[in-house]
């Protein structure tokens, strides 16, 4: 059986538990979305709600909900801070996330309260490749058809 290919752009950070990608911009503003493995496990997204701009969110807690082919659940904030913008296009057409999660499929941007402190657990740089490999192996061992 051929293995699936998962795209993990090297310039991004990744939150290990929630499978969210994070792009750091200026002034501690981050943009985030669901990474390729998270998305593959969810399947096609049918609905998303996200907290509106101005809302306070806390790292690891809900910043919205989603319904995908397989389950309903929260979308978890990768950092604590204040929501700066929500991608309304994805809220109205969640399929964009499945099409282009690292581009047009971004979900939300947040002004981070403590980027240096909260980003230490994110995966990036040289640690990225081994982490992705380990994730795929772990999921394969659970019957995942990678």
């Amino acid at each position, binding site marked *: 059986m051929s293995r699936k290919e998962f795209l993990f752009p090297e310039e991004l950070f990744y939150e290990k538990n*929630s499978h969210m990608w994070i792009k750091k911009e200026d002034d501690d503003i981050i943009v985030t979305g669901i990474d390729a493995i998270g998305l593959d*496990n969810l399947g096609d*997204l049918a609905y998303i709600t996200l*907290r509106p701009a101005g809302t306070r969110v806390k790292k690891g807690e809900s910043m*919205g909900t989603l319904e995908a082919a397989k389950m309903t659940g*929260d979308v*978890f904030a990768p950092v604590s801070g204040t929501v700066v913008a929500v991608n309304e296009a994805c809220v109205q057409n969640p399929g964009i996330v499945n099409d282009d999660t690292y581009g047009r499929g971004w979900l939300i941007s947040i002004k981070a309260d403590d980027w240096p402190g909260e980003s230490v657990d994110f995966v990036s740089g040289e640690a990225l490749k081994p982490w992705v490999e380990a994730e795929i192996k772990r999921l394969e061992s659970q019957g995942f058809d990678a």
Partner: protein
Amino acid sequence: MSWRLICDDGVGAAFGLAADDYMAGAVGRGESDPLLRLYTYRDHCALAGRFQDVENEIHLDFCRGHGIAVNRRPTGGGTIFMGRNQLGVALCIPGKKEDTYGRAREVMGRFSEGIIRGLQSLGVRARFRRKNDIEVEGRKIAGLGIFRDSSGGLLFHSSILVDMDIALMLKVLNTPFEKISDKEIATVDQRITTVRRESGRALSTDQVRQAVATGYKEVFNTSLTEGYFSTRELERIALRQQEKYERPEWIYQTSRVKDAEGMCRIKTEKGLLEVRLTLAGRQIKALFIRGDFFASETAIADVEGHFRWHAAHKEKIEETLNQLYHKHNEALSSLPQQSLLQAIVQALSRARVVEKKLSLEPYGCFVSPGGNLHA
């Protein structure tokens, strides 16, 4: 580890949902052992899926006139009709150590095994059907859904049809039927089934409950300690009920992704074929097939079941039809595969036109998640 077992009957819609919602979080936070709750709702209630628009899915005037409660589940999927003859299953387990999405693929099938074992012990040949159904020979006998709480706790929901008043259900739920006659009732009766029908016995809901409890004990190799919610839990559930499940902002919220419907009627060499399809974003939410061709209702029900929450891509539709025609080769011989594919694709294309039109209209009544509504 021992699980808690709570059996309660005749619960109100808001309490029933608030209890499941709160306990998923309590188990996720480690404040409670895993919980298996096997319960029934007070006759009757209609519970929409997390993102459904109740006004689209439920005949609200009929419900108001007949004292039928309406509410919204935290889990996804379609609207369910609940009462004394439908057994609710809520399994709350911790998920903190698991990754958020990594096991989504497997958990639905795994958690349904307790129900399947229980039903099989009653002589019902139940089995898991891809995504979110338990079926018997292609007919749905139980629906399934999963919600992951922000604490990491997982709530697995199911509704098992011990029996069903189909005529009443069709008055409550919005269906693709233009009218409800004996023919439509008979059609639905062929698509779903019940524990009483499949077992050939007038089993009580409690007998089914005992079988399901035993099924979970065996499958998960656990013990069940029967009890009830603690005083503190009841206080917290009451609060969740007031702040969420009794609030119109929760029940009547609408989705930004509008359902779009498309229909296609074509004449095939074997008779007339009609397909009605409901599209939600990129998912086929529901498919309904009828016509004057001869085909096994069981096989048609199986086809419809496989297209609930199915990707709306032609290639994937074709792939699923190939599998289904391989499985039901003889039963579907009077319904040409290419005609069915053509009808589904055309209905889908018409639904997309409707969807585009809807997306240009304002969404005046959207309720943005926030506050204490635990979006």
